[in-house]
């Protein structure tokens, strides 16, 4: 949001300068240039500031990384889906790889309030790639090599094809890990009131990403992308309208609750 404001501010400023140019005593071409420039500047600013800058169309091989000037020392790796067949997994709306990464980005830094994001709360946050390459093992290895304290996976769930009625929040933990179990409980407590439908909790022992080395790990299937109304909820947007992504800060709340609100 901060970058959006910077961009929008620059554009309004530039538009003002160009309008001044337009209102000057100069004639013809200069004035037209000023007016046209102001309109273009404002348009670009609005474009930059819009929620579209949240990258909910981006498929990338890059891990995004937020480093606060002073960090609380805790590293949070937010893992996104990397299904090769994303787009053909029964999605009613956006593809699964986008869904997971978009939520992760909002939890890390792009939410309605910077103060409530992981970055704004001085966590070192990395949002993984979401390329369609089945390379989720690269997410796990990156998290392990980086020394993540928290490894949190976000996918959207599926049951048969688009149009199915199944819908619930599912958060999974690693059996035998008290930290994983506690983080899972905390995530369900926070997310269940805002995600449509009920909630479920079970183990993710059979999934490779569940064996990331971070002690605090959980695997979230946020909603069913095969359920139309759940998709509508998710795609309702974010940034200050009380819509779906504005709840992504609840990840930070769950993590803070588990780690005791560490601040440098």
């Amino acid at each position, binding site marked *: 949001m*901060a970058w959006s404001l910077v961009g929008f501010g620059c554009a309004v400023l530039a538009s003002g300068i160009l309008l001044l140019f337009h*209102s000057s005593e100069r004639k013809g071409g200069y004035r037209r240039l000023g007016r046209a420039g102001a309109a273009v500047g404002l348009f670009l600013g609005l474009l930059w500031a819009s929620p579209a800058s949240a990258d909910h169309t981006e498929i990338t091989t*890059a891990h995004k*990384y937020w480093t606060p000037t002073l960090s609380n020392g805790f590293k949070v790796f937010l893992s996104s889906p990397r299904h090769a067949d994303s787009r053909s997994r029964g999605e009613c709306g956006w593809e699964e790889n986008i869904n997971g990464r978009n939520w992760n980005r909002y939890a890390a830094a792009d939410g309605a309030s910077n103060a*409530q994001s992981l970055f704004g709360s001085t966590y070192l946050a990395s949002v993984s790639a979401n390329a369609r390459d089945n390379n989720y093992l690269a997410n796990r290895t990156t998290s392990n*090599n980086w020394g993540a304290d928290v490894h949190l996976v976000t996918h959207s769930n599926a049951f048969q094809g688009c149009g199915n009625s199944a819908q619930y929040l599912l958060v999974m933990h690693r059996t035998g890990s008290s930290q994983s179990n506690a983080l899972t409980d905390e995530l369900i407590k*926070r997310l269940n009131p805002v995600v449509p439908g009920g909630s479920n909790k079970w183990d993710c022992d059979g999934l490779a990403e569940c064996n990331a080395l971070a002690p605090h790990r959980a695997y979230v299937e946020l909603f069913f992308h095969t359920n139309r109304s759940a998709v509508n909820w998710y795609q309702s947007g974010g940034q200050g309208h009380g819509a779906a992504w504005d709840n992504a800060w609840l990840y930070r*709340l769950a993590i803070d609750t588990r780690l005791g609100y560490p601040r440098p």
Partner: protein
Amino acid sequence: MNGPRNRTRGVALAALTAGLGILATGVGLLALPAVAGNPSAVLDDVPGFGRSPEAALRDNTIAYWEAYQREQVVTACMSRSGFTYWQDVAFPEAEVVKISEELKAPQPRTVTKEQQTPAAQRNGDYETRLAAQDRERYSRALSGESAAEMSEFRRTGTYPKGRGPDFGVGGCLGEATTEVPSIWDTKRRLEDQRQLMRDEIAASPQLNAIKSEYAACAERTGGIDAQSPADVDAHAVKGPAQQKAAALALESCNEIWAKGYRAAEDVAAQRFAERNATVLAGARQRYKDTVTRIGQDQGFLRHLGERAAVIRTLGLDRQ
């Protein structure tokens, strides 16, 4: 004739004022995490536990170097089996650039198309082009598992029936993990002790002492009855309107909480260091010459410079 022009000038000046205001707000929000004060540096001298920016960068540098070494082991091991393998050092890209700058790794003038292709893709393409029999040998050499099972494992993320975390970590990958341990091993091994440290901080007199100051701040800035950020968050979950007030209180009162937290953390970290003195001394000993060795590892510095150049060329370090 001057009327419309004056109006336009008025609009322009209003836009200038609004633009400056919005810009200042944006810049202010960007700078938010740069709170005053310093993180606890009690454990800074223990590799893997660095908290100051310098010590944290040292730890990340060692971690990246170790990851690189593991990939070197895999490359050599695969070569012994007669296969080509491109080392694939998995690490957040922006951090790789930072490490490269810190070590002043030599940057190549140009980045080739081949260098821009991710190692994972090159390895995947190479494996796919192998004849079926060689592909089976490749898979067993790399991970200790059959090509068919690995292919299914990659597709689904699920272990084969009857298998668990031991799956896919044998072969050359296993050899690398055994040969090159991680700087984070000690931290992970001491997680229970770290939890104890966090419990001590939560119950500390230092955090208790700032509660009334925090409460006054939360009331003043957000109209919220809260003695801690946890109380503010409890208010925020009530709805979007409460969330806005809570965000303001969180931001405004952050330094009060941080002041108490830092003081509590210093004491708890000291106790943690005393309780685990032998283990932490082991970590210090293991890494005592590592930073010097990294600076002299020309092969690593070349790799690092190249990797950073590729990351910058592809814009992978942008937020």
